[in-house]
């Protein structure tokens, strides 16, 4: 990619300081996202995928702090901006939608009112112009009978419809980047499909960049261009979506793909689970966080976390694993 990235995150490190100690949620994560691109961040619980994006938007709860790193959005480091500047940015240039729309929407205001408020807060337009814009948005997200639904309250919508309202709210100020944190996890599979297609359609129409955070490999495969795989607060592998599924390089990614049933490739074989459990981020392992569960772990993995190795220059496929070091012994089956 020769154009400079829309968002450039380097060495992002966030911890939560609890009564039981420091929980290292994000440990030195780098990634880029370019305009118009859909980046998927996939990881399990405790991987730090949500906290990474919350850190970028400075939405951490009281005892969380980003202690290191930079996050340059269109050249400005978001971690250095004042709270006022961040407020202008949120909802305006960067929008976020969450897993549970019911908790993100105010149950005492009509949906129309909430979005109109958001628009007026960021743009200098009249109320009636804002209202027209909301109707436009509802039509964009395919809410039937858009105009009449402005006066409805959140509880009058079903789960899928509420998520569409959230998307409409997020798009209301033409953001350049949309961060979607598990937007379809709580939805039924048929509604999930509709929402994902909607996101894809909107994205290509508006040229918006999307960061899609999820734990579902199927969802990632359906809609993203590039993928970042996270584990134990660390970025393990980054690749173009086709490359990742075709030739996963990191043992964790390989393990993950082997443990998920593919509905089309049924061959009666057992799934190959990854033994063990995700690490406790209160006491993360010293070297590579995945080491305790990796069947290819080497001595060096116990003490030192690996740097990122480039796999294939043109495709910008990177994997954080000692196996890719030129001196490492070639192990059978690591090119899955």
């Amino acid at each position, binding site marked *: 990619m020769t154009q400079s990235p829309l968002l450039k995150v380097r060495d992002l490190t966030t911890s939560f300081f*609890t009564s039981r100690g420091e929980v290292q949620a994000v440990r030195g994560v780098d990634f880029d996202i370019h305009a118009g691109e859909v980046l998927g961040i996939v990881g399990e619980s405790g991987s730090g995928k949500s906290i990474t994006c919350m850190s970028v938007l400075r939405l951490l709860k009281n005892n969380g702090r980003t202690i290191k790193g930079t996050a340059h959005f269109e050249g400005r480091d978001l971690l250095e901006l004042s709270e006022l500047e961040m407020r202008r940015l949120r909802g305006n240039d960067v929008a976020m939608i969450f897993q549970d729309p019911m908790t993100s929407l105010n149950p005492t205001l009509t949906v129309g009112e909430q979005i109109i408020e958001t628009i007026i807060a960021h743009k200098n337009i009249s109320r009636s112009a804002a209202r027209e814009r909301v109707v436009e948005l509802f039509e964009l997200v395919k809410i039937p009978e858009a105009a009449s639904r402005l006066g409805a309250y959140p509880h009058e919508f079903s789960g899928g419809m509420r998520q569409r309202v959230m998307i409409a709210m997020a798009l209301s100020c033409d953001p350049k980047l949309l961060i979607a944190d598990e937007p379809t996890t709580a939805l039924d599979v048929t509604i999930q499909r509709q929402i994902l297609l909607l996101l894809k359609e909107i994205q290509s129409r508006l040229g918006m960049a999307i960061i899609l955070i999820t734990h579902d490999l199927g969802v990632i495969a359906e809609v993203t261009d590039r993928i970042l795989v996270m584990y134990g607060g660390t970025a393990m592998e980054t690749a173009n979506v086709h490359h990742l599924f075709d030739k996963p390089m990191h043992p964790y990614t390989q393990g993950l793909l082997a443990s998920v049933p593919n509905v089309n490739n049924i061959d009666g074989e057992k799934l190959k689970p990854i033994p063990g459990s995700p690490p*406790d981020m209160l006491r993360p392992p010293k070297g590579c966080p995945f080491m305790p*569960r990796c069947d290819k772990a*080497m*001595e060096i993995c116990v003490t030192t976390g690996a740097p990122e190795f*480039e796999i294939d220059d043109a495709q910008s496929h990177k994997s954080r694993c000692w196996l890719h*070091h030129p*001196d490492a012994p070639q192990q059978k089956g690591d090119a899955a």
Partner: protein
Amino acid sequence: MNNLNQKIDPQQWAPAKVDAGEAEFIAAPSLTFWQDVRSRLWQNRPAMFSLAFIILLVAAAIFGPMISRHTYFDQDLKLSNIPPILQLYEVQNEGQAATYFFLNSGNFKLYETTEDGELKSILRAKRKDLINKRHIYEFGERRIFVDYSTLPARIVDADENAIDAYGTKWNKTYWFGTDSLGRDVLVRQLYGARISLTVAFIATLVNFFIGIFYGGVAGYFGGNVDNIMMRIVEVIATIPLTLYVILMMVVLQSGFISIIVAIGTVFWVDMARIVRGQMLTLKNQDYVDAAKTMGASTWHILTRHLLPNSIGPILVTLTLLIPSAIFIESFMSFIGLGVSVPMASWGTLTSEAVETLRSYPYQLFFPAAAISLTMFAFNFLGDGLRDALDPRLRK
């Protein structure tokens, strides 16, 4: 790509000895639920101070009257209404030891003390000049006048000069002073603590048993049983509690047992509601369903699952009911319907002290402070317990 050029020791490429079973290892020590609660409560300063205060108070209430040299009913009318803090004056007499005394600004009398603040006796005035509003005292050759024509009263010598105070000392004979009948306020306070706390604890305990049983049955069985039981509770709750207790006291006659019965018969509604609420929430939990699929009896489910998990809110409610009980008992005694004279409860002490409020404010200060501080302490403790037990605050 920083250490690509760094030479790595070939031994580092050997396979690591990985035991996936180790991945199942739990590093943290095993804390029971209560140990966890205790540690969180410990970190809550106000709650800890309150707990310490309550423990001290209970200890003082039990042991105080035993080790004090005064009893709660001994009267000494000559030494009535003496404050706890004495401003002493010294009078030198040639050839004799100095005499110390203090002025009781309430009744304009002088009392002799030791240098240290121990009361000796009341001093007899030589003469009382009521027209000029002076009392005249003679100490050997010296004459001292207590002039109360203008307030505050002053002590002056023969030349109309005010005498300087010698110093301020704590009353060593009666640490909290005496009341209008010359009884030691401190020991009466402690005795009152015994009464007030006993009433509060027992009444709360009665609530506990009635409330748990009632609320438990209503919540667990639900449906019509619950409906009927809760309607009864609502009726009882609408009756103004204080009014009801007053009526009860009139019927049962004043007395220690009566007030416990009176408070006990109406107080349980709060506890019943809390327990019922807990039951309603908890009985839908999956682990209750799991127990049912194993064929558990109702008794088993109640005692092994529902009650232990409700203990938290029950305990908090208990702790917060105690100050209410204290207050009600005090109020009843204050208006004359509680324990009877000469038994002292904080309420009766307050009631007696109100009469002398203008002149001897300290007499009201102590029981009022006792009631307030104790209520504060239980409230802070209850709040602290509630926070410590809240699973959401975990993490």
